[in-house]
């Protein structure tokens, strides 16, 4: 749940504050997860080391992978970013490295349930408030400028590629942390880390929660993940119900819950004034 919240956060951040539509959230999860898994299993590093290394290393690798695609915009970037996790999936499968299709198991897990539950909640909250603050700092304003009009930013003497790179690095660090966390939560790392779920569900959460609000996607994830589990009772029909709910939202409330409530709140305030 916290993982999807983190992924939804970075999707919202990249899409609505930097103008990069990144559909490949699984890329961050996968690189972060595999790095921490490999470090823990092959080199025997403890958990407190593997997670930070995986966070930075995964961010570095993801950013390097996405770097050549940064000049392309909009839907084209979205498709390339969607391709990357699928590509890495096939590479690991074909070369049979890092445990191949079986994955690497028997990794270190968190010492007790308190750590693994509260750690992710703390990280989600810290990330949420850090990103909220970032987008109103001068650095964040440049990123929002790139989203609104990248040509004007270039005409202001600022390298947009450099700023986009920094934004992607921040986002992929968060995503890689989520991947490393997931690895140690299950004590197992495998190909499912590159699965489409990690790319699609955060987008659904963002649509549901409200684009461009940052807090909306977190709420959306907190709503969608339990729903996902409840719908499991329907078996294969789960995806159908799930899609129906999403379609309903896109058709009837495309602005998302958070924007809707914000608007209502402002109307309400105004009403009292008069």
């Amino acid at each position: 749940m916290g993982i999807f919240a983190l992924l939804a956060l970075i999707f919202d951040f990249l899409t609505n504050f930097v103008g990069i539509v990144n559909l490949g959230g699984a890329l961050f999860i996968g690189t972060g997860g595999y790095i921490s898994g490999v470090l823990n299993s092959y080199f025997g590093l403890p958990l407190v080391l593997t997670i930070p290394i995986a966070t930075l290393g995964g961010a570095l690798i993801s950013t390097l992978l996405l770097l050549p695609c940064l000049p392309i915009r909009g839907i084209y970037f979205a498709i390339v970013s969607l391709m990357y996790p699928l590509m890495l999936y096939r590479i690991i499968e074909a070369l049979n490295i890092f445990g191949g299709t079986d994955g690497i198991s028997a990794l270190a897990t968190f010492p007790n349930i308190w750590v693994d539950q509260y750690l992710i909640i703390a990280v989600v909250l810290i990330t949420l408030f850090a990103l909220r603050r970032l987008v109103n700092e001068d650095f964040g304003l440049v990123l929002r400028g790139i989203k609104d009009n990248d040509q004007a930013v270039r005409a202001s003497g600022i390298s947009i590629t450099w700023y986009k790179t920094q934004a992607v690095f921040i986002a992929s660090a968060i995503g890689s942390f989520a991947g490393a966390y997931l690895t140690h939560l299950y004590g197992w790392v495998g190909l499912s880390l590159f699965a489409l779920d990690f790319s699609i569900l955060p987008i659904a959460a963002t649509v549901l929660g409200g684009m461009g609000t940052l807090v909306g996607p977190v709420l959306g994830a907190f709503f969608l993940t339990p729903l996902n589990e409840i719908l499991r009772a329907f078996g294969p029909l789960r995806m159908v119900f799930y899609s129906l709910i999403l379609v309903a939202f896109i058709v009837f409330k495309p602005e998302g819950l958070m924007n809707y409530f914000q608007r209502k709140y402002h109307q309400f305030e105004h009403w009292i004034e008069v």
Partner: protein
Amino acid sequence: MSQEVLVQVRGVSKSFGGVKAVNNISFDLVKGEILGIIGPNGSGKTTLVNIITGFVKPDSGKVFAMGKELTKLEPHKIADLGITRTFQIMRPYYTLSAFKNLIVPLYSPRVKRASGGKLGDRDAVAIDLLEEIGFERDAFVPYKLASALPQGYLKRLELARCLALRPEIVIADELFSGLSMSEIATMVPIVERLQMDGMTLIMIEHRLRELFRVANRVMVMNFGEKIAEGTPEEVMENETVKEAYLGMEAVV
């Protein structure tokens, strides 16, 4: 006026498909002058600006400025040298308020270098700059969202975005178009003041009367070629210009 040449454009050409948008254009820009570029629609004026500022790479020809070959540089590097431009189609950062729009250029490496890291409060600098260019602070205009501003203010915001960079050369692409007469009347003194402050300007215009009032030199383009160059008076007397551009008015 000293005759220090800032920008040299040498034989620049650019085609889009089969259309020669800019065909073998050469001119010099002298420090402190206002150079007007006029021409009918589609005569390649904006493409020329795009080439100078690096947004479009020419097929042939070169542009030099400040000892650098601009045609080899990225747009943001050219802006970093102090050559900045306004866009014909204004797209401010809509989600930000007017003064926050200026934070972006104020955050650029060029301004950081120029101020030696001691710019102080960027918000205050931005609001001062906007007030100078005609945003009434008392009416809280600088605090309004850019999406809520009318045309005239957007044009000013566009110009302010350039000025925030403390440029040496401003290339204004149709600064006066789409404005009412009274708005233009307030814009002209702003342009004149920029020149007095020692800035060099290239102005692309359709509003000939206002342009001829402020420009020192005018270049006329038609079908991507330079057909005349000289003082506003010389250009107005030129027969080819009359035929290509002003002649149409005589027919009407």
